[in-house]
């Protein structure tokens, strides 16, 4: 399993998944090993991806550019969610940065009902 982890790391070229490498690796693995390999690839992809959620993806282009500059080596994905009401939410693998109005209201509500 340690080898498969290394194979997953080796599936990248210039921080992007290399399809040719993946095909070569997958052809040599058993079914069980492929499952583990895919799990590792998904994990690495989520580590390399920044999910940015905005109320309207077409506004705040400066913010998106600033985020892309901060996370140069990562893949920035922009989502839209009107439920946020205002502000921005950034997910960097397992770190969630909640700068949106919905989270603020939820926190206030929890505090008041404590």
């Amino acid at each position, binding site marked *: 399993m340690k080898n498969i982890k290394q194979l997953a790391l080796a599936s990248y070229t210039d921080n992007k998944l290399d399809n040719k490498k993946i095909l070569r690796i997958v052809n040599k693995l058993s079914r069980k090993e492929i499952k583990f390999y895919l799990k590792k690839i998904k994990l690495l992809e989520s580590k390399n991806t920044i999910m940015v959620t905005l109320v309207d993806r077409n506004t705040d282009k400066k913010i998106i550019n600033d985020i892309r500059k901060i996370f140069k080596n990562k893949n920035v994905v922009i989502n839209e969610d009107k439920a946020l009401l205002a502000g921005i939410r950034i997910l960097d693998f*397992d770190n969630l940065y909640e700068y949106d109005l919905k989270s603020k209201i939820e*926190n206030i509500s929890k505090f008041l009902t404590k």
Partner: protein
Amino acid sequence: MKTSEQIINDLEKKLKNFTDSKTVSNIGTVYKNTDGVITASGLTNVKMGEIVSFNNGTEGVVLNLDEDSVSIILLGDGTEIKEGDKVKASGKLLSINVSENILGRIIDPLGNPLDGKNKVENGKNMPLERIAAGVIEREPVNTPLKTGIKAIDSMIPIGRGQRELIIGDRGTGKTAVAIDTIINQKNEQKKVICVYVAIGQKKSTIAQVIERLKETKSIGYSIVVSASASDPASLLYLAPYTGVAIAEYFMEEGKDVLVVYDDLTKHAWAYRQISLVLRRPAGREAYPGDIFYLHSRLLERAVKMNKENGGGSITALPIIETQANDISAYIPTNVISITDGQIFFLTDLFYSGQRPAIDAGNSVSRVGGAAQTPLIKSVAGKMRLELAQYNNLAAFAQFGSELDEATLKQLERGKRTIEILKQSQYQPLLENLEFMSLWLVTSGHLDDIDLSQIQTFEKEYHKFIEKKYPKILDSLTKGQKPDEKLILQLEKTVSEFKKIFK
């Protein structure tokens, strides 16, 4: 009915204390939900024992930190949690909110009320896991914890701050002794707060215990932590730690606390279940490797603090259930080696009518005389010796008339000692009455009383003294060794009573 202005004012007052510093949180994604354990990816910053919460509000505790995942035991219903759900770290370790209002309450291991009243709030958050007090902060056990049970207070005395194991087969009276001890604390001048932790028991049994505490008016200074057999293994695992966390709150205020863990065998079973589901390596009898540490870190928190650190104490009475009186099994030997003595209950004694069914030979209190008042000590030593001599001679009892007079006398004295040590359930005795009973047998005043009448004699003698000579009882209450004058007075009362006793 509050007006809208009042409601707005209340909200504004509360909001003044609001600080929203939690803009960054550590989250994970569920990828497995099996047998009450959630495996999640992410949560790279989470700590061992940290509380996490799921989308549906259920909380869990992190118990395994693996390379790419964490394992979480659920503290509630996990049937709605599915793969892909998010889980958020709270940044907090498990704790319970404790204040004076928790006295008289029945709660679950998470602090949720089970008695229909409001949750205890606005108190101090006491962590469930905590390092025990160090050596320097402690002092030797020197104050008795009176159980009100003659057999225990005389031969296996318990002190405040001691850990005394109650061990025996099912149905031998272990819980009864613990409950009697709790009931007896209402007679104490320096109050002892009692925490009864029910682990893995039937709800009907727990209800009976609570009812008994209410009937005897002991619930006012007691707290019941209930993790019944139908609760998840995670709650059974946490229950004893909740009990000791509550005890530590009162101990820090300089009070004496008694914690009964009923029983740690089921606690070990629950921990074994959790560990096996977490895929931890199984050891002897499928218990995990840290099963000793599970109980040692719990029982080490029983303490007698020195005066500089408040002078409070936590006395622990863990209960262990054996199978076929086997005290050499894994969990019993573990807990015996941790505690400061054990009270061993035998099934044979129970069914032969000797209740409490205590095997005085195999029972011990490592604190001993330091936990006895001079009053009880004056009679206990002689009584224990006589009982030991009787046990040695008992095998010869079958020879009857072939024995010499001295041996026969010893046998008769031993029988009467055993008879006087019998005691009804839920009837703990005050120390002065205990002394009266033990003095009667050790001074030979019961040698001419028929065996079948010993208990009646004892009860009626107590009533006689309470009615006719209350001053004698008052002088015995001080706990000092009785002087010759008092002994002479007692001799006179016995002679007088024997004339009227039928």
